[in-house]
């Protein structure tokens, strides 16, 4: 059901930010037909997906998160079965096979949104080396995008799999991180008024497009399946 994840146990903001954006990026004109194929490799994000896609248990080409796409699923069998797909945290060990399945599942003209950790994510929170990124990926390996150059490789392979890149965004950008650090410092130094202004500045620069996207913790990639 929508809105069932406790505030005290929410996923890091950048993933929620990406998931919220994906809801509109993938939305069809007819909301009742909104059944994207979902592939989520991070248990910590699975409940976030479920509370945004409450029909996840309904029959059809929707794959309940988490878990890799099984080759025997209806989605995988039915080439071109879905108009939209959401791929959360491709993993280094499995992303090529997953991409092949996704490429076979999304119909021409359909849309794929990818949410992937980037190298900067390994410095922060649950995804850090101290926080053991393997557990973030449920032991299946490091996030593919967290390797140096990982997102670039992924983008190239998306193109060769028949997807045209529409847009790339970085979520929780380096400037926003820096501003938030300074904001806390200003608060401690007795200027919470200036700190708050920096906090709001950081919010405005939380999401960055294009080349700057690499300098952020999470990538949001929007691609459309090419009509041949």
């Amino acid at each position, binding site marked *: 059901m929508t*809105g069932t994840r406790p*505030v005290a146990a*929410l996923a890091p903001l950048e993933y929620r930010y990406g998931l919220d954006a994906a809801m509109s990026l993938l939305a069809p004109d007819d909301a009742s037909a909104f059944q994207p194929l979902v592939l989520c490799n991070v248990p910590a994000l699975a409940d976030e997906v479920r509370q945004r896609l409450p029909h996840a248990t309904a029959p059809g080409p929707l794959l309940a998160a988490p878990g890799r796409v099984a080759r025997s699923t209806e989605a995988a069998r039915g080439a071109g079965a879905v108009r939209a797909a959401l791929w959360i945290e491709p993993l280094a060990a499995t992303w090529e096979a997953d991409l092949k399945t996704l490429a076979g599942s999304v119909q021409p003209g359909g849309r794929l949104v990818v949410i992937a950790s980037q190298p900067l994510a390994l410095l922060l929170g649950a995804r850090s080396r101290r926080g053991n990124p393997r557990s973030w990926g449920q032991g299946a390996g490091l996030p593919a995008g967290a390797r140096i150059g990982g997102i670039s490789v992924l983008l190239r392979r998306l193109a060769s799999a028949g997807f045209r890149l529409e847009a790339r965004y970085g979520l929780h950008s380096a400037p926003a991180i820096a501003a938030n650090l300074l904001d806390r410092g200003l608060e401690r130094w*007795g200027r*919470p008024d200036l700190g708050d202004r920096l906090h709001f500045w950081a919010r405005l620069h939380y*999401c960055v497009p294009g080349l700057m996207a690499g300098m952020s913790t999470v990538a949001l990639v929007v691609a459309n399946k090419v009509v041949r």
Partner: protein
Amino acid sequence: MIVPASPKAGVARRQGQALPLASSQAGATVAASVARLDAWLETMRTGAAGAAQAEPRGYGGPVAHWWQQSLLYTGAGLDWRYEGIITGYLHLWKRTQDARWLTKARRAGDDLVSGQLENGNFTGSAFEINPATAGTPHEAACDAGLLQLAMELRRTGHSGWESYASCAERNLRSFYIGQLWNPEDLMIGDHPWRQSVPVTFVPNKAATACEALFLMAELSGESRWVEEYALPTLRRIQEHQVRGREPAGGRGRSSRGERLRGAIAQNSIGTRRINKYFPLYNARCIPALLQGYRWTGDEGYAESALGAMEFVARFAQADGSLPTVVYPGARASTSPSWVAPLGDILRAADELAPLGLSADLSATEARLLGGQDESGGFQTARGFADQVGRGRTASRAQALPDVRDVLHVAGWCDKAFRYLASHAGSQIPAGLSAPFETDCTLRGRTMHLVETPDLLEIASQGAVCYRWVKGEPWPQIASPEFWLR
């Protein structure tokens, strides 16, 4: 010493009385405003009634807030909007004896009952953080609404009040007492206390919980809700109040420190006090402090309540606006300056009138009433675009309101609704939500916003950049500007 208000004391007026201006005319004006706001609230209903709901039904729409936004999730939010909606409809019912208002109050209560999870929490209860559950003070505000509904139904001999009472009790027991009550520090914290290190305490949120606890005690006849939980929590709130000069950490001169007398600090994290003072949240502490005064007869609670409102009134400007936050040194930020939320400040002033509050907030009242648009919804604020400071924006964009200013938000409009409903005359005319449009700006881009009963659409340079079909949990179109949190 607290001096009960005399009939001539300032602008004192008891809750439920008509506005102090030419009373019949004012009552009619307010009644018309309430009718239009009711019509707008109807357009914000989302989710169909029925079994096996995957999405909660209730009042939806995007949210603009000081802390962050939720412009993308537009489904129902079972949060503090229900406090004002239920109570507002109960006011109209009591004033008019028209059963349709009671029916609407019950329908709102039914939203909460059907949206309650097995663990007692409500779905989508986190307002600007939605989608999420276990939001504070939101679930306590829902409880307060449910309990007032149950008490009114019981008082008037209607059946079915028990389901609303038990829904609230379940939430209070499992969430507020079971998780948020901190038995070591004797207070209702802001996080499950076993998981919260350091402990976080937010006075205004705790005050909302206290309001619900007082109501629970009144309904059940069990004083322990108050004696064991509410009163110790109220004492914590009082510990966050500026009693004399500005507290340690402030660098203002004493005259500035005096300006903060009575202000209640926003929160504390462990032993660290966050010395920011929000007039709106100070006002939201007042009803609970007054309940403490009425329960115990301890004038300290009433003095705290009066002190908090005197702090708020001290910062009121001639145009009725109030700062969103006042920092140490009495530095005030008016970016943004609330409009619809002013209802909660005016409501708190109403409650203090019998105790002799002499502040004149008529300009604030006029500012609130001036914030209503053709749709019937009330604007949220002025000045969101300047939160970071005046930037190098184009002059036209600079003059325009921010999208978040003109957004009509159910969880803010409920505050206007509750206040105005308590002042409406006994005749409420038919209301209509008409289309509303305005130029506005977001992040330096000039935009045009159109709201109809069915749709909220925002375009820039001829291209739609945001389209929400009312009733849907997500907008069909949302350009990256609207991903803003």
